[in-house]
């Protein structure tokens, strides 16, 4: 299954709708400090169902909503859409493309969609839990994760191993 597109709107520093096409095998993301690269990584974790705010560098979940700048007020909601090609039938669904959609409103209410049909967070978790793609998976290797593995923080190595096994 290949990543096709990521769309962000109102998510952290991505106030305006932003579309990234993942056409290739190895995709580089570059830019100066603080421009938003790790925020893109956070967006992918978030749309895949991440619920631990500290994995999103936030004290509370509503902190992922664009919080405004000197010249622009904050957003009413954060929205991320991730679209896959289901080319290997890994995702147990008849669709050739699968889109996962997550919205969080300022009042704390959330919306989730699978292929544009409203669903619960649980449905998203079930869909991807077996593909090694869950937000806690060893596939997302921010520098912090390397550190946890080295210190074996909270038995990180065994927990990661159990996810893969």
């Amino acid at each position, binding site marked *: 299954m290949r990543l096709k597109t990521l769309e962000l709107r109102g998510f952290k520093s991505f106030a305006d709708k932003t579309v990234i096409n993942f056409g290739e095998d*190895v995709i580089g*993301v570059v*830019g100066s400090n603080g421009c938003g690269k790790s925020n893109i990584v956070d967006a992918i974790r978030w749309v895949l169902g991440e619920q631990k705010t500290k994995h999103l560098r936030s004290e509370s979940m509503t902190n992922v909503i664009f919080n405004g700048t000197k010249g622009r007020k904050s957003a009413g909601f954060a929205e991320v859409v991730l679209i896959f090609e289901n080319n290997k039938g890994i995702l147990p669904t008849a669709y050739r493309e699968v889109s996962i959609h997550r919205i969080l409103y300022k009042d704390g209410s959330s919306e989730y969609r699978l292929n544009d049909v409203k669903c619960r967070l649980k449905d998203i978790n079930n869909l991807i839990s077996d593909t090694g793609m869950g937000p806690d998976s060893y596939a997302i290797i921010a520098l912090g*994760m*390397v550190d946890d593995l080295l210190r074996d923080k909270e038995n990180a190595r065994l927990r990661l191993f159990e996810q*893969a096994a």
Partner: protein
Amino acid sequence: ATNKFMQAFTQVRGHFVRVFRSLFEADDTCDLKLSDPEKPLESRIEIIAKPKGKRPLSINQLSGGEKTLTATALLFSLYLLKPAPFCIFDEVDAPLDDANIAKFNNIIKDFSKNSQFIIVTHNKKTMEAVDIMYGVTMVKGVSKVVPVDFRNLQAVTLN
């Protein structure tokens, strides 16, 4: 459950030795051990890593770059057990020297036959190794993404 665990563990251990030796040297001593082989599900996983003929008493004695490579070898070993559809590395190459960055990018090139890799980086050598590059820029606190090639790279990375 224990049998299944041990089977998977033996596989990961095999991968670890191979990946470690491709990142360090071909005859290096390295291993993964269970702290309590009698009760695997309650064990911790111990890492033995002795790159380039050195004899560190624990992985804590290794250098910053050596530790990063060792952890990466473990992550790749888990990946080989069950390849994830995509992997994201966020500035994992920061502590690595040029030679190790080349090895790191080669391993990614290999695995990219089966999965997509998203690599966030500040390193020029890593940038040369990717297939396509997206530049992220920020204007007045708002981020946006632009496709990049080496001509507009300076503009994107020098803010």
